[in-house]
């Protein structure tokens, strides 16, 4: 089976504001197959966001090749939908208008069919009664669900999610994880989900890719064989904690797992996440 998404020897170097060349990614190789849920896990500022922007075509890789359906990604694609870290809804539009915004923005006008599909998306994320509300009347979790509905509107084959639940409180975050699984079951998509939460990655994904600190490379790939549909009970199983332990070990001792990782670039996860911001 041909992969939906293919990263081959992808590296990305960009020039920072003070003129220095920063190597964010190097030697990234992985495939994502149809309707597979991939979680990318790594410390903050390791280049996860760069990975996402390469796939969405916002950046072009400086080394190697990112391809979707065998075609090299050089510009934004119509077959990808993005959910951002913050919901970033338009405060002057109501929820329904926000969901339909991508179509309006792209094509300039909206048909009644588009409105119907936007309503269907809102129903899917459980917000059909809130169609006429304004964004500031919704909680953070609800706003992010609108963000998901907006990303799903044009029925993209690939859904890219950039730490979508990281701005939410812990309780809402867990709830949103289950909610996402529920949505994904009803609307299967090829998903690239970026996160820095180990348990979130294990709960959601079919495979978890663990990245090293910058320049990021894949230091481990763990297939999560937990049965689906997953729910609150999945978290309580011993397999679940075995997976999280396995990943945790990978993150804290990356030098034992990889060959191409320089040892001076491996501060602990805690140091990384406290000291740096997202690239």
């Amino acid at each position, binding site marked *: 089976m041909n992969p939906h998404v293919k990263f081959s020897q992808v590296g990305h170097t960009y020039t920072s504001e003070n003129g220095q060349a920063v190597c964010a990614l190097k030697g990234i190789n992985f495939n994502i197959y149809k309707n597979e849920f991939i979680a990318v896990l790594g410390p903050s500022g390791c280049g996860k966001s760069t990975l996402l922007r390469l796939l969405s075509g916002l950046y072009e890789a400086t080394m190697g090749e990112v391809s979707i359906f065998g075609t090299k990604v050089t510009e*934004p694609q119509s077959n990808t939908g993005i959910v951002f870290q913050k919901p970033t809804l338009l405060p002057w539009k109501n929820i329904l208008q926000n969901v339909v*915004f991508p179509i309006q923005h792209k094509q300039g006008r909206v048909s009644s069919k588009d409105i119907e599909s936007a309503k269907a998306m809102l129903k899917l994320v459980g917000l059909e009664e809130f169609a006429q509300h304004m964004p500031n009347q919704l909680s953070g979790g609800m706003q992010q669900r609108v963000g998901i509905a907006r990303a799903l509107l044009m029925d993209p084959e690939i859904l890219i999610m950039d730490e979508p639940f990281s701005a939410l409180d812990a309780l809402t975050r867990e709830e949103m994880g289950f909610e996402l699984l529920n949505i994904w079951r009803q609307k299967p998509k090829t998903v690239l989900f970026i996160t820095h939460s180990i348990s979130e990655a294990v709960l959601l994904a079919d495979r978890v890719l663990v990245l090293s600190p910058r320049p990021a490379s894949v230091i481990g790939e763990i297939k999560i064989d937990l049965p689906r549909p997953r729910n609150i009970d999945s978290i309580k199983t011993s397999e679940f904690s075995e997976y999280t332990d396995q990943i945790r070990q990978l993150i804290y001792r990356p030098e034992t797992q990889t060959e191409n990782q320089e040892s001076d670039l491996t501060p602990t996860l805690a140091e990384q996440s406290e000291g740096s911001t997202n690239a």
Partner: protein
Amino acid sequence: MHKFNLSFSQLLPSLTLLALLPIWETAVYIFEIPNFLLPAPSEIMQAFLNVEWSRWSTHLWATLRVAILGFLMSLCISIPLAVIMVRSKFLAKTIYPLLVIIQSTPVVAIAPLLIVMFGAGESPRLAITCLITFFPLVVSATTGMMSTPEELIELSKSLGASPAKEIWHIRLPYAVPHIFSGMKVAITLSIIGAVVAEFVAAEQGLGYFVQFSTSYFKIPQAFAALLFLSVLSLLLFKAVQLVQYLFFRWSLQK
């Protein structure tokens, strides 16, 4: 959120002013302040009534016209200018210093030169009003458009939308609350601009009338014109608020 219904706390400023009037009146009376220094409110009122309404309305209209037209012209210049500066870093770097220079030059000092350049009539007055109001508008529009969340810009790019759509659908609406803050500053400045212009060269307008009255030593009359100007300025400010409330209610949140 902003409401336009009247409550006691909203009436307080007016009540304070009303309470000040008798104090002012008695102070002038007790300390025998000559009316060329500070006329009593009753004298100002008298002076106000002595001038026929048609005369007032001519001056009022002349000032109002220049202020509003100048303000609108300024709006029409500054928003596109802000868009240009947001679109191009190069032009932002070249235009912005010029704007700062223009802003830091006292408009009052340029006014006579503008009269020479534009000749008599309304155009130099409009130019002066424009000059004095455009800076807060450009700055607020630029700041607003620049403060658009990066994610929305990426959303726009990921949809392959044109830069024009990015400006029109995302950046400009995002700038609306900022633009209104700028407009509230600019609209009061527009009255100042109109009055300054009238001081230099005009045959009508409230600014001209203040100057005319003082030169004939009709101080209460000058005060009456001054009062008119304050009320005018206040009403224009309220009008901007009303426009925001009626058409951009969402931008009053937070």
